[in-house]
């Protein structure tokens, strides 16, 4: 009897697991070339630090993680930082649910470029509150720092997004930025479901108004 029950239980459980629609959070890495987007991603995904630099075109990663007790999947799109690929970015951005905007604290230009990226994201997503984290990478290279914590904080406040300093080399704050972003995405999704349940046609109406222009 007991064993029979257990088996059924198990079957139920595995069935439940399999059938349960897996939540996927789509994260997009953005930022100038060479700031460490891929390094952060690989550190997060595989706990490895890649020393040699190879410009990314567009890499895709997905794995299961446990977010606050709930099993979800994180899908990471690691994009190209180089300007050469700027044209194809828009397409990628559209699918993103949350963005890690990365710059290198040792390179002022990369910090300046974050403004352009944010602008592009906001334009493509058409959403000021899109989950977004400003990430200052290469925090281990303190002696080469060019971007002060203050100015980065200031910009983050201006955008009302969190600012986190990470190091893909030492793995400092790596998990934190991804999990924080996923939490943001989750809360946004939950909010969206509530909204769509409550006022389903609101947005469309709003849009219709626009046509009057």
């Amino acid at each position, binding site marked *: 009897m007991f064993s029979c029950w257990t088996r059924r239980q198990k079957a139920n459980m595995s069935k439940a697991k399999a059938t349960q629609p897996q939540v996927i959070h789509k994260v997009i890495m953005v930022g100038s070339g060479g700031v460490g987007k891929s390094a952060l991603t690989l550190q997060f995904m595989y706990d490895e630090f890649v020393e040699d630099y190879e410009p990314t075109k567009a890499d*895709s990663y997905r794995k299961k993680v446990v977010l606050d007790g709930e099993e979800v999947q994180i899908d990471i799109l690691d994009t190209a930082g180089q300007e050469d690929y700027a044209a194809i970015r828009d397409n990628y951005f559209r699918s993103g649910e949350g963005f890690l905007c990365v710059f290198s604290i040792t390179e002022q230009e990369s910090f300046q470029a974050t403004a352009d990226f944010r602008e592009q994201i906001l334009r493509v997503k058409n959403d000021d509150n899109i989950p977004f984290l400003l990430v200052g990478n290469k925090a281990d290279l303190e002696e080469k720092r060019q971007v002060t914590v203050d100015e980065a904080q200031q910009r983050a406040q201006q955008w009302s997004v969190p600012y986190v300093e990470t190091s893909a080399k030492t793995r400092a704050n790596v998990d934190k930025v991804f999990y924080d972003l996923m939490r943001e995405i989750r809360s946004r999704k939950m909010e969206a479901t509530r909204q769509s349940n409550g006022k389903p046609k609101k947005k469309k109406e709003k849009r219709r108004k626009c046509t009057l222009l």
Partner: protein
Amino acid sequence: MKKGGAAPLVTGVSPKEGPPGTRITIRGENLGCDIKDFIGLKICGVDCILSAEWKSPSKIIARSGPGKGKGDVIVITRTGGVGSCTVGFKGYFVQIGPLQDSAIWIDESQTVSIRHGRTQSPIFSKEDEDPLGISDEGNQAKFKEEELLEMFPDASGNMALQNFSPAWYLLENHHDTSFEDMKAGLAYMKRRATQRSEGPIAFVKSNLSSTLDCMESLDALHQQYCADDLRGDSVNQYAVLLMQAKSCADGLFKEVLGRKDKADSTRNALSVLQRFKFLFYLPLNIKRNIEKGDYNLVINDYVRARSLFAETQVQVFKKVYNEVERNIGEFREMLQQKLMELPNPLDEQKKLIRYLLSLECEGDPAWECLVNMQQWLTGILCTCKEDHIKEEQMSQTESEASMLKSPVSHMSIDTPKGKRRETNTSFKSTLSPDQSGWKFNTPQKILFIEELTDIMLENFPSFWKLGQAYFSGSLFVNVKENSERPQKTDSSKHSKFKQMVTDVISLFSNLVRAAFLPKSLENTPEENRKEFGIWRDNKQEIPGAWLPSGVRYVRNCVSSLSLLDLPGDCPTLIQDLALDMRTDCMVTLLKQAISDVKQLHLKETWAVETDDESGGTTQLPALFENIVNETIQHLHEVVVQNKVGEPEIFSQRTVQKDATVLCTQLLQAFAPCIHSLAFNPPFHSPEKSNSLPILTAEGKGTLGKDKVPVTDKRLIIMLSNCNHTMVRVIPRLVENLNKHGYVEMNKALRAAQDTYEDLDDSLFEAYVEEKSNPIVGAIEQNMYKGGFSWKTCGKPSGVRNYLKQVIMHMIEVHAEVFAVSPVFVTRVTQKVIEQVSEEFTRVIQCVTDHGKYGPVQARLELMALQETVSLYLTPHASKCFKEALGDLPEVKTEDRKLSEELLNKFKSQMKFQMMCFYGDSILRNSSEA
């Protein structure tokens, strides 16, 4: 679960899309525990295992195949089976234009045909369809074209047209878009505009085909015009314009073309470098290979380079080739130096010579090497000799110094015998332990011969073989090139080489002769002899025990040299040397043995050992036999026994004769020894101290004297020794000699036996004389003791005491002989009895006047004596007795009775004494039976 058992899972691809052949980094879990475990990879359904490179269980690098569209990346492992993936790869085909950036290499020859690729490309690129960068999704309800035409007459929504109206466009495409979006779109368009505003080049680039089309049409127009307008005036204007347009167009592409030219020339240069990489690396490679010792490679490279570049006119090649030549020159010198370095294994030398030949070295390296080697060989042979002579002189002065220090050891060194020397030095070793040491060392000459033969054996064969190889031509690598040379060398150098070989061999043989057989060099000039070394001319310097080892070295050397098939009289030269050495050794050893034997009397200990076979002997005969046998054995091993190719030592008449004479002398040498021991023994013999080394000088004299027995005893012992030697030892030795190949030994046997028979006779006579004289001399005297007279004597009452005394004396002799050697008992006793009976007869016959009882008494005593010794009576003795009895006057019957009674009485009284003779005879009879 086992780690390797889990199914592979791909969780990352980099990049996630690309045309076929894109290099993809695949990451994930359980991608195989090792490279063998990883057995399959599918990207978009295409098997890509061939291009895959397994890096780690979490990383694989592969190239995408011709899969199109989005698909899975599946890894298959042996342990985990077919895996799954959370990410996919998107394959697409791109037609990449000649001026477009591409991340991968495009084979343009296939895809870009001059005409087609261009015409296809649109005037505006794809992204221009959506200049604002805002998606038009959600704008389903479009305005109808009629409506728009109504609103904007004379206008159009097509951006390519001149009457383009932005309002029309916006209404047509973005009537549903918010104002913010519109603003963003504007910003996007502005940014794009700045990007595009690189100037006309960008525009021409993107509209290349159109531009070319224009040019071609214009050109065609021009042609047509020229054809139509014969005057050509109107055309000129256009022609000028066309030319301008053309030069303008050329100018636009100048940069590109320039780059292409540069790339071409770089590529050319690279390919030249690649093609002649070999040459440019050659100097370095040569050095490296020389360091590594890979000479063959160097030579091959060089030959190849020479054939390719020796005649080159190209400046760069010339420069590099010169460097190569320089390197090779150094290499050549190095090889030559190496070749001249000796000693060097034969193979190495051959190799070096071949290298040098293939490097086309000037001169004749092989011949130079041969000459060098011969000089070197001569040099070391001479040096060896010099060293050893010096060494010997040094040790000699040292020994002289030590002699001066201790006169005792000086004396001991003067004595030529090795054994004696050893004895004395050991005896005195407490005084000078350091100086005494050198005498035990191997003699210098033996060390010399050992080293000399070693040198010959080590180096000469390779010298000879190298020469052989040289003349047989096997040293020449390239026969074609050098075909004239070996023939040339053959005729001029063959005899020279022969001379060289002979020189070395004769030097060797002369060096050996100078050391061991100085006499054989006597007819060479003085200055030459000096060259071969003057050794201290003292034969005794080499103890006999060492000589055979010297001979063995020479023979070994000679026999291995003989195998070399040397030219001319070389074989004879060395064979003669060996034979002479052997003969010399044999003569020396035999002489040594003879002198050893002659010294044997000093070793007599007088301890008689008796055994049934040979009677009583001392150890001397055994020692003698030992010495001879050892000598024979020694000689057999090193001298007599023949090796392959050596002449029989006894085949030469002189040697044979010498050997026979020496052997005979050796066999006879023991006789004087025995003789001197028997007749004048050395009283103060050092052997006493030798056998009892602990007792020092004080005990020496007394003990030595005590040990030597009195003359008669000595005589009988020596007699026994002599007999034993003659009967047993000599035949045995002769047999042994015969067995070892010595010839005419019967002669030697006869001579030896004669010698020992003579000795035996003289010893026997001396002994018997010694023994019988006292007995015989006492008979007459004692017979008439107490005024006895045959005439007046009374009735006999028994045998008188004097006779008993005679008998006792004889018993004494008998016992003495028996104690030493029972074999001699009969012989000696008979002889003694003969003499006694002779004396008796003489005395009895001298009696002229017999009284009444005189004859009775005489008869009684004669009978008693006769009865007692009856067993030892010889015919001569019996005859004597008979004569004596016959001379006596006739006795009466009652007197005869009386004498018989008295005889019986005597017999019973003397029973024990008589038994001495009988018992012995019984014993002897039984032993003989």
